[in-house]
């Protein structure tokens, strides 16, 4: 083992896609002495446990702006990072059930179009043409953006990891952050299970453990972590469902991966916030019913695996970005509420700019955690 790293220009807590993207982007801006701490193996947390969708179909101006930027960045990512990420842009079909959701999504498409996103309403016939396996006679409407899609969450995270290593970033896995040292209102270092690192900058990218890490610096976040379960099937012939299917009142997201496997999940009832990544038969049964109803051909398809991951939730389901009040050098990139994977290609660069002392190229001050104390929530209707 190499000599212990005693100091760094910045320490990032968490090796998920947010942490790895930030590490790469900091190094790209010239902050080369960056250390990423991971208490388990690389990408062992929520990044690899999500649906890995990427979309610009949102219901707030801010998310439309971020969503469009992240799409553009994803489209250039393989070339930039030099490793495949299996980006697949089969589009997203948003399915509305009931007139209320239909009107909401119609309004959102109006906003999206004004912001340069080429989403549109589909007829039922068009929806079934784009997703041949779809049954949705009970749906009230369909909305679609063909550039939306998904990528491999592991490969994306590892692509950032490899690129960051090439730029000199140090990754320390099986190394847990146990404390953050603050001296006269400034970050001074971190304590870990293997030793201390002196550093003027610490970034909380701890995903499901964001609130525990924030507490180490004396910050109380209103976040909670919520377990979301997913199932995946054996591979079947591709073409049953090329786009992601998503519904907020229907409470599902379902997509077919390039290898033919179909993956799907939904939001849990209540708040299973015990931090365990366990699985239940109730979810398996409920999700099987959604699958077979939406895609009747899946009745004969076998489930091969079930898993869960933590969504780090905030009161308005929007991330928390920025530097902590009263603690210079302590930054937060947390609370992504289920859309941290897709946003990583843009929030990594934005946070890197902020930490580097620049004005971020897309404004993010409205995402500071003080918005909760002020009551300035940014309510987003489009979250599963």
């Amino acid at each position: 083992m190499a000599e212990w790293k005693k100091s760094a220009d910045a320490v990032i807590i968490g090796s998920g896609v947010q942490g790895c993207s930030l590490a790469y982007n900091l190094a790209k801006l010239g902050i080369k002495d960056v250390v990423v701490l991971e208490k388990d193996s690389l990408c062992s947390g929520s990044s690899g446990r999500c649906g890995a969708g990427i979309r610009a179909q949102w219901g707030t101006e801010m998310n439309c702006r971020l969503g469009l930027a992240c799409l553009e960045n994803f489209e250039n990512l393989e070339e930039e990072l030099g490793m495949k990420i299996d980006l697949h842009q089969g589009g997203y079909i948003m399915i509305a059930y009931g007139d209320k959701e239909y009107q909401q999504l119609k309004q959102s498409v109006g906003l999206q179009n004004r912001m340069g996103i080429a989403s549109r309403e589909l007829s039922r016939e068009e929806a079934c043409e784009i997703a041949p396996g779809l049954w949705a006679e009970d749906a009230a409407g369909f909305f679609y953006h063909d550039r939306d899609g998904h990528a491999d969450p592991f490969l994306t995270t590892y692509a950032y990891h490899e690129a960051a290593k090439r730029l000199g970033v140090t990754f320390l896995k099986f190394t847990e952050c146990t404390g953050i040292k603050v001296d006269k209102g400034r970050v001074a270092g971190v304590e870990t299970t293997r030793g201390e690192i002196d550093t003027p900058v610490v970034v909380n990218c701890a995903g499901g453990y964001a609130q525990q890490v924030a507490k180490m610096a004396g910050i109380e976040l209103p976040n909670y972590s919520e377990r979301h379960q997913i199932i995946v099937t054996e591979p079947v012939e591709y073409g049953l469902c090329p786009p992601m299917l998503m519904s907020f009142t229907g409470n599902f997201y379902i997509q077919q991966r390039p290898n033919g496997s179909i993956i799907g999940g939904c939001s849990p009832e209540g708040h299973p916030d015990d931090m365990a990544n366990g699985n239940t038969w109730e979810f398996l049964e409920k999700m099987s019913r959604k699958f077979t109803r939406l895609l009747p051909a899946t009745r004969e398809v076998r489930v091969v695996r079930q898993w869960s991951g933590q969504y780090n939730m905030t009161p308005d389901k929007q991330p928390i970005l920025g530097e902590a009040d009263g603690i210079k050098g302590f930054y937060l990139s947390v609370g992504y509420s289920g859309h941290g994977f897709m946003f990583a290609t843009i929030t990594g660069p934005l946070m890197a700019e902020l930490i580097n002392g620049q004005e971020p190229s897309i404004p993010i001050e409205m995402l500071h955690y003080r918005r909760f104390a002020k009551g300035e929530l940014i309510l987003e209707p489009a979250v599963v």
Partner: protein
Amino acid sequence: MADKSNEIVVCRCEEVTMGEIREWIAKGYDTFDELKRVLRVGMGPCQGRGCRDIILREISRMTGTPYSEVPPGTFRPPSKPVKLGLLAEGGDD
């Protein structure tokens, strides 16, 4: 004679060779879970039944960690593939 063991297909479900596994272990992806994430070993229909032990031994050999100390990776339900139609019909209501 050139060593041909790199061409052995260790993971039949996802067609992963010993050479690929060795390449990624050498890059520092030295747990089964990490290899699973980057190569998809253990994600196919056999869920690692056919390849896990071989891969764990290779990790042990390349890292010098005793076999008994190599983390076996995470096991996930269901233990056998089950048809969605059967699951959808099951249970109450």
